[in-house]
């Protein structure tokens, strides 16, 4: 257990933006008609995957289903509700959902509502070293998929749909949290004392009080700032470039889900991955330096296509050369791959990418963050608000879902034992369960990133030896695969 930041002191001094006015006279409350703000059992800030799953899980659990809930989301949720794309287009933000996450989403009634035609399970993974292509490691899971690719929007829509089936709650969308402060001081010596309840002022001017305030509000979590919980970490000096791509059509191929492979190659600047979507489509996630990422985004479509194909085929030296070009990548690739004699084998490397979906290329800065604790009095953090992980293991969203599952178990336990769901001592159960587990995952992905960021001879030799050894060692490989599939721990 980590030492906690002194609560009130840090609240007051931490970030001037999210101020704490507890010790100032509450003239507003005293003078105006004492209309008390609405008190909610759970106020969730953030309607991303973590926040929506939290509300769904609370509503789907009998013991907690009657809690009074509020959601605050700065974006308009209407487009997410009515989201629809034709079958030849895929959103660029897709995540691999592990079997553990899938089981949880099924349990709370969400998984059956996801559009199944837009899901792609995969049973195999190929991972190899960009500097030593001979050391490929392959994972296979014949019976159940390693994970299933899903667009974040598909998941979000299913969550919103499921929430509509369940008991209603207050949604404040297109609404930002303007400020958070401590609740009003009691008006007399024996009246209700809500001073420990976080009081939120919304951009609409409305005020609400929370018995438990959950920050599912992403990387820059205002809830975390209010609680004065420090977060530690660094920016990777890397960006993740994402895009939806289409493979070249294949002749006489029977789409068999069981043969679908996820590919990842560790280049010195970061891993590049192609994760299959249904049909001939795939999601590209290319982690690279900010300058290279900026360059990738400005390239003409066919040049980008050639560079992606090159990234899975050519030596790093050739690739480095190609990525400095401003155009003519296709000819360069044709020439170089012929010289290198690249053997096309789908079991080893992905098929040729044919095109990039218009407007799907985007990039995100990558970060490593872990907060000192996920809870304090009347506060809990989940998802990216609590931790941000390098996307190379595809775990960010899954870790957020695991947080939610654990937090809702904790809330259920508290309700069943007559506790106050904002009581830190109960919330600590959630922190104890998830903090170390996430820390391990954060550490592993961070170390992989660093290990593969090195282009120095001996290290490359050692790590490719490592990959080969891992490939031959059944149990170790099994463990790694479980981690990737989230069925470990």
């Amino acid at each position: 257990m980590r030492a906690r930041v002194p609560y009130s002191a840090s609240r007051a001094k931490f970030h001037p933006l999210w101020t704490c006015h507890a010790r100032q006279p509450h003239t507003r409350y005293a003078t105006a008609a004492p209309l008390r703000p609405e008190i909610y059992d759970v106020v969730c800030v953030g309607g991303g995957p973590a926040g929506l799953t939290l509300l769904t899980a609370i509503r789907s659990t009998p013991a907690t289903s009657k809690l009074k809930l509020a959601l605050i989301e700065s974006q308009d949720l209407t487009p997410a509700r009515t989201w629809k794309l034709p079958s030849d287009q895929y959103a660029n933000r897709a995540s691999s959902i592990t079997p553990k996450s899938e089981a949880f989403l099924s349990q709370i009634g969400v998984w059956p509502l996801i559009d199944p035609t837009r899901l792609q399970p995969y049973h195999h993974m190929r991972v190899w070293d960009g500097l030593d292509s001979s050391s490929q490691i392959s994972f296979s899971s014949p019976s159940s998929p390693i994970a299933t690719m899903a667009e974040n929007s598909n998941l979000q829509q299913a969550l919103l749909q499921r929430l509509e089936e369940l008991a209603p709650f207050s949604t404040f969308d297109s609404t930002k949290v303007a400020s958070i402060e401590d609740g009003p001081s009691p008006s007399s010596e024996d009246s209700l004392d809500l001073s420990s309840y976080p009081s939120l002022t919304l951009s609409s001017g409305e005020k609400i009080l929370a018995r438990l305030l959950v920050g599912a509000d992403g990387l820059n979590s205002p809830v975390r700032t209010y609680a004065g919980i420090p977060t530690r970490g660094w920016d990777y000096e890397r960006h993740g470039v994402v895009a939806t791509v289409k493979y070249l059509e294949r002749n006489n191929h029977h789409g068999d889900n069981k043969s679908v492979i996820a590919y990842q190659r560790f280049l010195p600047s970061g891993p590049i991955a192609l994760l299959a979507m249904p049909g001939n489509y795939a999601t590209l996630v290319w982690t690279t330096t900010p300058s290279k990422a900026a360059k990738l985004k400005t390239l003409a479509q066919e040049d980008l296509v050639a560079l992606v194909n090159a990234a899975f085929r050519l030596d790093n030296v050739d690739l480095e050369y190609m990525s400095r070009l401003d155009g003519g990548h296709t000819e360069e690739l044709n020439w170089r791959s012929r010289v290198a004699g690249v053997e096309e084998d789908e079991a080893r490397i992905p098929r040729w990418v044919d095109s990039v979906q218009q407007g799907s290329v985007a990039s995100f800065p990558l970060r490593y963050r872990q907060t000192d604790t996920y809870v304090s009095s009347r506060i809990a953090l989940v998802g990216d608000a609590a931790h941000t992980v390098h996307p190379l293991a595809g775990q960010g969203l899954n870790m957020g879902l695991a947080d939610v599952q654990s937090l809702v178990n904790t809330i259920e336990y508290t309700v069943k034992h007559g506790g106050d769901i904002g009581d830190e001592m109960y919330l600590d159960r959630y922190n104890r369960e998830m903090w170390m587990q996430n820390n391990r995952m954060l550490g592993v992905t961070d170390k992989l990133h660093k290990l593969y960021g090195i282009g120095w001879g001996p290290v490359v030799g050692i790590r490719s030896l490592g990959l080969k050894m891992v490939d031959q060692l059944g149990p170790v490989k099994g463990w790694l695969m479980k981690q990737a599939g989230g069925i470990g721990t």
Partner: protein
Amino acid sequence: MVAPRLSALGNCSRLARGFHALRSYATSSSSVNPTEVSHFNALASTWWDPHGSSRLLHLMNPLRHDFISSCHALKPHSTSQEGLRYLDIGCGGGIFAESAARLPNTATVTAIDPSMGVIEVAKQHARKDPILQEPGRLEYLNKAIEDLEVPQLPKEQYDVVSLFEVVEHISTPAVFLTSCLPFVKPGGWLILSTIARTWTSWLTTKVVAEDVMGLVPRGTHDWSKYINEHQLRAFFEAQDGWGANGGMKVLGCVYVPGIGWRMVAGGERWGNYFFGIRRDP
């Protein structure tokens, strides 16, 4: 040798609660001496501090509910339609009373303690929760059980009468327990938790907690007052109309650092334990 040390910790904090109850039950509630009051006042301010001296009691609280549920599971309850009526004797700062009052199948909780200071702490803390402010849900009385009017009708009696960490501080437990009995509704349960008088508990509470670690003032514990499970059993066997048809349950519990409180079958023979007995319907 992990266990002794653990129950030492469990016990010294547990003590915080029982301490003030001590003489007030034995004599009269007005005879609280100034040293006790100041000792208690120091405790009172940290009663609800999650890192304060009552932390282990807070952590133990869910187990109390688990134990009560397991008693109810033995003999399905008939009166649960209107909800359960609780009487918490020696309620301290209200850790158990508040939690019982929040449960959905609770009709009302009456919680009493002879010490004015703790009742004040309990009342202050209950102000933080609008649910607990609902009329009739939770009532604190600054009284000893002897001062409470003995109910005559079953509807004035209680489904659950609880005595958590109290009896080991009473000089005449038999007299004290006898005065609690009429408050239990026929078919209802008397639930208590305490610590066994064994070499382990002597070592952990007298030697480790008081002498070696100085966690509690010397002489706070009177080991000779500790009550073993078989003594309780004998007491109730001598009563008419209690514990028939398997209406009795005993379970030990132990605190393990880093893990928390755990129920341990057989633990009643050497450390903390729960005891539940049903009044025959």
